[in-house]
């Protein structure tokens, strides 16, 4: 081996070899610089998405109220990512993987919402922002989120059409209006090309296809992706979630516009009455006099 090297270097003068080395380093430095430039340009083109995530009770939870029926009883309740938001998050992951988008998630809530946010990070969001206050009404939440959007310079904001706890359905709309952004509600399909978004909406008895410029706020729902597309956080994602940033920001001063007076559960179902198939008279009688349906 030694002999071989000696033989090869024998053909070239030392100066020549040194100059090759210089060129080589110059190349490396240049490549590094171009790489940096490319990354900067790329960064500029990267769509920045904020997915707004609401922390809601699992659909199988038992619903009870406390404090004279003015507060939801969270005792023993399992919390999850609001399903409409999860469809949005999954779509955002698609933009991340296919178009290199950066995906952040934001939630208004106290520290108890962090497991839900960690799940979003485990699924693949890059960063999470928790606005450190207990959410009250839709206006309040929208004001808090709008502040995050303003400060973060997001191109696309994906919220759920409604959260499945209080079903207010106001947050994305108010947020868009506060920010002066375009808004598509009940969105069931979304593509983005450059600065242009093509969105599909569900409307009564059909679908509507729209085009809108970014920045844009979406009120999303199932259809953005299907249930079978929803992701189970993988083990590596869970481990990485711990290392990703979960930034806590303080809320802005934004008084609630409403407050809850009382919750009522639907009346318990009464016993079922079976009416003989031949006895139509009895059925009409019951529907008219008892159920008062006809």
């Amino acid at each position, binding site marked *: 081996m030694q002999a071989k090297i000696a033989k090869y270097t024998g053909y070239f003068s030392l100066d020549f070899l040194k100059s090759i080395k210089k060129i080589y380093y110059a190349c490396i430095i240049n490549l590094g610089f171009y790489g940096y430039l490319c990354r900067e340009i790329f960064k500029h083109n990267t769509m920045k998405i904020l997915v707004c995530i609401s922390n809601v009770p699992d659909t199988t939870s*038992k619903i009870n109220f406390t404090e004279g029926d003015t507060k939801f009883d969270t005792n*023993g309740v399992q919390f999850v990512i609001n399903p409409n938001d999860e469809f949005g998050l999954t779509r955002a992951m698609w933009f991340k993987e296919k178009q290199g988008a950066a995906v952040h998630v934001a939630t208004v809530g106290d520290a108890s919402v*962090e*497991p839900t946010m*960690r*799940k979003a990070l*485990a699924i693949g969001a890059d960063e999470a922002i928790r606005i450190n206050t207990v959410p009250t009404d839709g206006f309040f939440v929208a004001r808090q989120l709008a502040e995050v959007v303003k400060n973060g310079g997001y191109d696309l904001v994906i919220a759920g059409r409604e959260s499945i706890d209080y079903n207010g359905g106001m947050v994305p709309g108010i947020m868009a209006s506060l920010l002066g952004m375009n808004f598509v509600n009940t969105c069931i399909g979304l593509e983005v090309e450059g600065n242009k978004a093509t969105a599909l909406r569900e409307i009564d008895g059909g679908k509507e296809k729209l085009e809108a410029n970014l920045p844009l706020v979406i009120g999303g729902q199932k259809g953005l992706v299907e249930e079978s597309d929803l992701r*189970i*956080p*993988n*083990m*590596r994602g*869970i*481990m990485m*979630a*711990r290392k990703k940033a979960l930034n806590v920001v303080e809320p802005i001063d934004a008084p609630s516009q409403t407050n809850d007076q009382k919750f009522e559960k639907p009346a318990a179902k009464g016993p079922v009455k079976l009416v003989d198939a031949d006895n139509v008279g009895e059925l009409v009688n019951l529907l008219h006099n008892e159920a008062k349906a006809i």
Partner: protein
Amino acid sequence: MSTEIATKEILRGGQFIVKETDCEDVFTPEDFSEEQQMMRESVKEFNDREIVAHRNRFESKDYGYTEECMRKAGELGFLSVAVPEEYEGLGMGFVSTMLVCEYISSGSGSFSTAFGAHTGIGTMPITLYGTEEQKKKYVPKLASGEWFGAYCLTEPGAGSDANSGKTTATLSEDGTHYKINGQKMWISNAGFCKLFIVFARIGDDKNITGFIVENDPENGITLGEEEHKLGIRASSTRQVFFNDTKVPVENMLSERGNGFKIAMNALNVGRIKLAAACLDSQRRVTNYAINYANERQQFKTPIVQFGAIKSKLAEMATNCYAGVSACYRAAKNIEDRIAIRIADGNSHQEAELKGVEEYAVECSILKVAVSEDIQNCSDEGIQIFGGMGFSEETPMESAWRDARIARIYEGTNEINRMLAVGMLVKKAMKGHVDLLGPATAVGEELMGIPSFDTPDFSVLFAEEKDLIARLKKVFLMVAGSAAQKFGAELEQHQQLLTAASDILIEIYMAESTILRTEKNAKRFGEEAQATQIAMAKLYLYNAVELINQKGREGIISFAAGDEQKMMLMGLKRFTKYANYPNVVALRTQIADKIAADNGYTFD
């Protein structure tokens, strides 16, 4: 983490029988980290979506679907939890490994078996005993699910007597490879695996040797037809024939003649993981039963309101709670022991091997206890469903059939019962657990005047903990005198050994249940733990009854005359309650709670 471990005393394997444990020193599922809770949710989601929702495919022997699910499990990282990071695994601790195993296993026994055979006995022999080259070459593929593994120990003539196999390995003349010849039977995953761990005998060696064999039909490997089985119907189980199969010498696992040791150590891990695999199944079956009992009406009454049904539900929930308590207690002991060994300078491989071996007694105990609990649980589950339970339409029938295998593989429960006591005695002879001192003390106590000290019964579990201490004396009295009487011949007295083993098992399970509940009552309050307290008391009561029966049986089998009388008196004294619990009330309390919650909500 290591400082935390260093400051608290960790019980050595088997020591629980002579030492008292502080409840703060046991790990419980309530101690899962946020990350572990997320893992649990993720595995549950996978299980619900891919396994539970497709029960029919498993029941109709869709082997391909089992394989497909294994691939998906690989993509989600579930196969690599226990694999060290150097070999592209996640390098998580033993508790996390158990947790994934528990929650992934409850949807179908078919998938559970495929998962266990691959991640346990299919992969562990290489991670525990492989050379660096072997590990680099094979483990990443197994961790990702690119390849699946199977474990070939059993033969038509060698089941429980695993070291008696006839498969041979003969070195080639040029010394480059071995030729393997023989027939293996009941090999899980055989139908879709790419790698076999094969045990074969070289020449007239006393012990078998382990080999890593790549599955290649061109290399003299053929498979039998799929076996048609009572349960785990979509788990591939076939015979594997080796006919002059060439295996490079570098594929020998560990050293020549070390195979039996490898086989047994792989099984230690397999056993505790099998116990974990039966836990969420119990929870699931119990939940189905509660839901059904709340819905089903007879005599214009939901059947959950009948005492006969309440009694069953309460016992099902209690045994499940006990199994979970004991499994995670042992799992954390193993994890800590591994960490200590690593801190002491052992390699990861060595530490893991010794860490699990240390708790081999507990592994056998858990395998037996939990495999029998899931059997009883699914049996009573069928009963609660009545005729519907007998129908293929409800999940009870397949749960019952799938549960049955757990008592047979990874060492039959008979073998594991004997092993539990046998290994404990061996530990005593090696000086790892001092049985002799405490046993002698019990002997002296029998002849002395009984102590009339009574604990302060107003303190939670004062009576129960006092009883546990006395139950340990029952074991020492029975096993100690028997060992003295029979010496090495004790092995021949299987009925006696089995009785002693039952006593040992019940003590471990009951103590673990009480310690977990005591720890939780201290941090969450007794009121919040009222049902768990009732379950701990009910479990102990059942344990005391059984220990009484087994103890009596054992004593009478080998002691006579005054000695017998004295020991029976001792048994009575050691199993006596100062205040008997009202078990009917306890069962009612437990059943009412789970009926109101419409589910088992304790872990």
